[in-house]
């Protein structure tokens, strides 16, 4: 065998005996990621689910019925008709029944079309909770598609019949006027625009959180592994200090650096992504929609971020117990944390509420989903969801911390990965 191959063999043996590395580079990509991919696909399919539209017909003519028929035959749209005497009453009923998409055909709808004037349909999308309006935006798109088809049909008819009147009204007889109901207020902005604005505002969040979690996790696992590598761990563990103090001290030290890094990233990312998506493109601001961040919301958000970070830190430290050196610590941490952060990317595109229950609860179980959800809940003023997140993360972090500290009181830390060593 040539020297080259002798060296290659040694390298392979050394690397392949590292269990963390095997797990990180073979098991995770081979098994975990395909499973995650499958899950995300189901998520996307489900996000395209049926649009449920509540319809109030205040019109008495034939064109109102025509529109209803068109909506009924449209794919992916199911229609429920309710009775109301006025728009206000219709909205109130919809509010009470928790309908999120309402189409109102006003009085004189048919007459306007008959008289070759512009007829108007009102579309209301109610954005609630932490969905960010993605579902309403999809629904709005579907309703608009139906209207486009109907408009074309009516325009052809009118042109064939040589109708005279406002050319605008002949070419596009029906206008859709879209409103968004948000935080109990009606604003004359289409749900799609509002959704766009909300998601663009919270788009950077998953990326920042992802980077930050990986960063602090690597850091804390690295600092543990460094203690092993530099042979300082044994001394550290015999100092007259409680083990939990050692764990907590390491974590807080890393968390401080982590928070500084997070702030740096957030500022940097805001400027970077800000140049890609700005509220100027949409023409409205969050403030105009009544979506302002209150001190309470901001405080809760920071708390949730902090707790997620504490969880990541102690989880990484627990993983590092099984790593012998910094190299394998990095692999073990990536293998352990990445699968927990990737699924949260679904939240960038899909509305939690429309996902299948299993996926929804899976996502909710992942601690790193909560900062992303919280960033939206903060805008929407959904403090109860934020409190729930904080409590969940708090419990989880404390549990993780205790488990990690528990491992520090056993000899696992020293013997977990040590190889048989014989000198002389």
């Amino acid at each position, binding site marked *: 065998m040539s020297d080259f191959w002798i060296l290659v063999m040694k390298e392979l043996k050394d690397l392949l005996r590292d269990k963390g590395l095997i797990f990180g580079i073979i098991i995770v990509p081979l098994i975990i990621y395909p499973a995650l991919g499958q899950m995300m696909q189901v998520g996307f399919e489900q996000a395209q689910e049926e649009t449920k539209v509540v319809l109030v017909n205040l019109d008495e003519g034939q064109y109102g019925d025509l529109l209803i028929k068109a909506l009924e035959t449209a794919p992916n749209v199911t229609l429920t008709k309710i009775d109301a005497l006025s728009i206000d009453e219709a909205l109130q009923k919809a509010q009470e029944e928790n309908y999120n998409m309402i189409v109102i055909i006003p009085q004189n709808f048919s007459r306007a079309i008959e008289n070759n004037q512009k007829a108007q349909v009102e579309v209301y999308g109610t954005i609630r909770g932490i969905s960010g309006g993605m579902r309403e935006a999809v629904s709005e798109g579907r309703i608009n598609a139906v209207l486009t088809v109907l408009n074309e049909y009516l325009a052809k008819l009118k042109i064939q019949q040589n109708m005279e009147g406002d050319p605008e009204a002949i070419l596009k007889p029906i206008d859709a006027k879209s409103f968004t109901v948000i935080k109990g207020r009606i604003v004359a902005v289409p749900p799609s625009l509002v959704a766009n604005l909300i998601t663009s505002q919270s788009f950077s969040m998953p990326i920042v959180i992802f980077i930050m979690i990986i960063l602090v996790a690597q850091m804390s696992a690295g600092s543990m592994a460094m203690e092993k590598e*530099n*042979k*300082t761990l*044994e*001394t550290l*563990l*015999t*100092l*007259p*200090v*409680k083990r939990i103090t050692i764990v907590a001290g390491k974590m807080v030290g890393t968390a401080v650096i982590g928070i500084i890094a997070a702030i740096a990233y957030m500022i940097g990312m805001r400027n970077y992504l800000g140049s890609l998506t700005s509220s100027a493109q949409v023409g409205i601001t969050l403030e105009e929609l009544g979506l302002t961040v209150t001190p309470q919301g901001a405080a809760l958000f920071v708390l949730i971020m902090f707790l997620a970070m504490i969880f990541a830190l102690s989880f990484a430290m627990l993983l590092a117990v099984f790593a012998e050196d910094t190299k394998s610590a990095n692999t073990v941490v990536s293998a352990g944390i990445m699968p927990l952060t990737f699924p949260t990317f679904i939240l960038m595109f899909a509305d939690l509420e429309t996902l299948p229950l299993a996926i929804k609860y899976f996502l909710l179980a992942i601690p790193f989903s909560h900062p992303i959800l919280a960033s939206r809940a903060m805008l929407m003023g959904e403090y109860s969801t934020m409190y729930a997140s904080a409590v969940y993360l708090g419990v989880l972090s404390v549990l993780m911390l205790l488990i990690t500290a528990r491992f520090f*009181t*056993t*000899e696992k830390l*020293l*013997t977990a990965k040590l190889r*048989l060593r*014989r*000198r*002389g």
Partner: protein
Amino acid sequence: MKAVLVENLEKDYGKVKALKGISFEIKEGEIFGLIGPNGAGKSTTLKILATLLTPTGGRAEVFGHDVVKEGDEVRKLISYLPEEAGAYKNLKGIEYLQFMAKLYAKTGKSYEKMLELGVKLSGLGDRLNDKISTYSKGMTRKLLLARALMVEPKLAILDEPASGLDIINAYSIRQTIKQFAREKGITFLVSSHNMLEVEFLCDRVALINRGMIVEIGTPKELKEKYEAENLEEVFMSIIGGKQAVEVFE
């Protein structure tokens, strides 16, 4: 009161039986040596007493505190120097001593005293202001020894304290250990394979081989019993020529 009590101590690492039921006692203020060939189980014994490892069987106590059940109590009384140890590379030597002194000292005054002693014991002088990453192996060892002794524990557990030190430094550390035992009443448990060092240093020694204690006594007693000139000869006649050749080749 007994400083250390070890009874039928056993330790398995998976299939490897590192300790097969050893027993010994150390009196307060005594310098006790654990000697034996490579892989005999010296470091394992010391790690158990330093609360780092959990024994598989038997028990061990430090000043009446069980090392498993009362780890926190034991750690308040001991100072442990691992066989292979490092210090935080990015710290300066003096910062390392300060860090350790802060953890042990209860008052500002005792902190100052501790630090002063540490600086003196290390013998590193101005080099204490350099980063530890620039130290030689022996310099790091001296720093670690200084930190282990400056805290003046009730029991110092030193795993091959003089390993990597030159003759002069090894000599001076032996003098320090003796002085600390006589003047401050500190108990020492020291492991070594250097028989002459042990003979010079220890009040009593235990010979350990393949996880078992084969002989225990004062160097004088052992020499008389085996009609040997020094401990090295005692060691050879007990453990036997064949294995000894294996060991020291």
